[in-house]
């Protein structure tokens, strides 16, 4: 049964509609691509048009290649996994970095250094080095598994109107952890109009919070850990002991916990739930009920879609500076199915496609759609000029310099570890003892890591 895919390759070619008849023609090559479509209700949006333009301009430039565009299915992660097992996966797809370690470890995606000779125009120096590094688990001299498409660092969104109403200075990129705490206290206001610095402040009747703190550990809290000088895992990815439970990391986690439970400047989970049921969080934020929250660039689009959106209510700033000035970056990239190594024509088409997809032809659309920053250095540098919100875009681009990649490439069981960290944080934010919870998480995560 293991060999099923070899025995039945013929059946695959004839029966799979993923591979249309074009494959039998001598000169024509069909490349199956996932990741250049939008869901049905977004047809006609700038992003959709950008994808269409990418496909048509590629086909124009490569008349012997047809792109078979496959919609990104719901539950894509489950499907790609099964497809890889059966050999029915697409030739090229766009993957979030969460999947990368498994894909690399299993040998399912191609080292794109193979493309460099075939497609000389595809150069690696076009990419922002820190983002390209996500695809180079063995360092800059090692293999390159796929190429980056776009990324976003995490930043703090804040509402300048709320700051003005409270008479608080808006933050600058060099603000410190102390500044941050002070700011949130000034911006947290109870029903009597007293802020959290006031000795009579009533935490039971808070009407406006300074910040949002949530359990999502890697997404929103890891940058804090770095700012405090801590980390969560060793460089070689074999242990979290001495990292996740280091004094710096515990200090950072305690700081976040205290924002909710001691300083009362961030809503506890229950209060947050209540706030966002009636409407979306962006709408709550725009109305000033919460003054700040950490998020990536895609949030701008969500904010803009709100009825109460007003450019004067949205600004962004980097994470506060502690021992380090650091933030985390999330990325998505183009990867090539390793099965293409046996098919020179397809490989050439795939290499050419990722060249196209990461060159300005398509990447220029990033600034227009505003979902993420192009990983193409030249395009990113000009993003602020093209963007509809230049100041915001400029902050994102400058924050990219401090961005460290999501540590998932260092974990072997990231999909188990990440929810475990979230559970730890969720328990802590609900009042559990910090050291105890962290040690429990260290023990369980190290158990997973020891399975290697």
């Amino acid at each position, binding site marked *: *049964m*293991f060999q099923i895919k070899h025995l039945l390759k013929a059946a695959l070619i004839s029966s799979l509609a993923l591979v249309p008849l074009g494959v039998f023609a001598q000169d024509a090559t069909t490349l199956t691509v996932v990741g250049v479509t939008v869901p049905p209700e977004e047809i006609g949006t700038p992003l959709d048009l950008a994808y269409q333009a990418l496909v048509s301009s590629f086909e124009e430039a490569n008349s012997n290649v047809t792109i078979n565009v496959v919609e990104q299915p719901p539950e894509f*992660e*489950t499907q*790609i*996994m*099964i*497809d*890889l*097992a059966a050999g029915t996966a697409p030739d090229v797809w766009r993957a979030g970095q969460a999947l990368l370690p*498994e894909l690399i*470890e*299993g*040998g*399912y995606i191609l080292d794109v250094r193979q493309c460099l000779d075939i497609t000389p125009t595809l150069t690696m120096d076009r990419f922002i080095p820190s983002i390209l590094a996500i695809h180079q688990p063995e360092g800059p001299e090692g293999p390159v598994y796929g190429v980056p498409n776009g990324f976003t660092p995490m930043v703090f969104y804040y509402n300048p109107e709320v700051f003005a109403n409270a008479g608080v200075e808006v933050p600058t990129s060099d603000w410190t952890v102390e500044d941050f705490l002070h700011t949130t206290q000034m911006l947290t206001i109870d029903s009597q109009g007293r802020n959290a610095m006031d000795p009579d402040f009533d935490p039971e009747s808070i009407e406006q919070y300074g910040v949002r703190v949530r359990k999502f550990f890697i997404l929103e809290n890891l940058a804090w850990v770095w700012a405090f000088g801590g980390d969560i895992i060793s460089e070689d990815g074999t242990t979290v002991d001495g990292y996740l439970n280091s004094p710096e990391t515990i200090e950072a986690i305690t700081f976040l916990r205290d924002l909710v439970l001691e300083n009362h400047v961030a809503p506890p*989970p*229950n209060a947050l*739930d*209540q706030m966002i*049921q*009636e409407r979306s969080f962006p709408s709550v934020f725009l109305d000033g009920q919460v003054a700040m929250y950490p998020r990536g660039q895609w949030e701008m689009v969500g904010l803009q879609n709100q009825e109460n959106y007003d450019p004067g209510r949205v600004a962004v700033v980097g994470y506060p500076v502690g021992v380090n000035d650091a933030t985390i970056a999330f990325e998505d990239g183009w990867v090539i199915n390793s099965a293409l190594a046996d098919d020179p024509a397809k490989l050439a088409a795939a290499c050419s496609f990722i060249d196209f997809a990461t060159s300005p032809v398509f990447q220029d659309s990033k600034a227009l759609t505003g979902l993420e920053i192009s990983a193409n250095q030249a395009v990113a540098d000009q993003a602020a000029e093209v963007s509809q919100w230049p100041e915001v875009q400029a902050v994102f681009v400058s924050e990219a310099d401090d961005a460290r990649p999501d540590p998932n490439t260092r974990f072997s*069981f*990231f*999909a*188990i570890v990440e*929810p*475990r960290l979230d*559970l730890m944080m*969720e*328990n802590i934010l*609900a009042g559990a003892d910090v050291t105890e919870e962290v040690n429990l998480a260290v023990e*369980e995560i190290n*158990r997973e890591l020891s*399975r290697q």
Partner: protein
Amino acid sequence: MEYSGNITATPPHQFKEKNLWQRFWSRSNEKVGYLFILPAFTHLLIFLLIPLIFSLYLSFTNWRGPNPQNALFIGLENYQFLLGDRRFWDAMRNTAYYTLLYVPGSMIVSLLIALVMNQKLKGIYLFRTLFFMPVISSWVAVSIIWITLLDPQVGILNYVLQELGLPSVNWLGDPSTAMIAIVIIAIWKSVGFQMVIWLAGLQGIPVELHEAAQIDGANRRQSFFRITLPLLAPTTFFLAITGVIGSFQVFSPIYVITGGGPRGSTDVVVYHIYTRAFEAYDMGYAASQAWVLFAVIFAATLIQVWYRRHQGEGSLF
């Protein structure tokens, strides 16, 4: 087909005791039964047993997916790891909690409704149609509806609670109520089905028995506990077995509604396995977890069968 020439040519019985071979060919073995079973068995073999055996093999490997070719045989390592896997046993405990709430809860509620419906009231068909609506809805649709119904702010359930002067509950956001909420939804969804099964059982009980009992001076309660309930035993058994099996496999509402949260309180075992297998691609280990779950369900079923036999029921099921 059953009596081919080959067989008639075999020598006459040399042993007094019939061996399996002889018993197989004896007339009392109604071999046509195999033909009746054949289609279902073939289907089961190809689409369930073979995949299942495959997954048993996988549970002894470190298959990290997607491609099974990369799997290494590692013996019992997965099972050893599992013994100390706190998250897995938490998920097992959550599942047991769900089962303990759901199985008796749904059976009692549906039996009560069936008893009322059995009163030969007019318009019963309309009611049955209405009660059956949740049964025929997809879990996805039901989940979507209930997420909004249970909303602490704008949900109808809390609105009713508030109108009654009770505090509003953050059903799905509070670890102590989230599983209860899931159980309520599951009962709501399945009550119509169980009610129909109970009703069929109830209508199979001869009216004369109750009349005779009444003449003997039994009140309604006695007649229910002494006559109705014992005669409903096959129905009870069917619902209990399928209910327990179903509860151990509860997945869809967790997947759509809570994702295992809050604070891991609804992380049931099949959902846990699903995340292992399809989010972490940790297929070999996930397979070993599935086999342990299978063993637990099997044991639970055997206990129920044993209990039923112990009660003096002759047939196996």
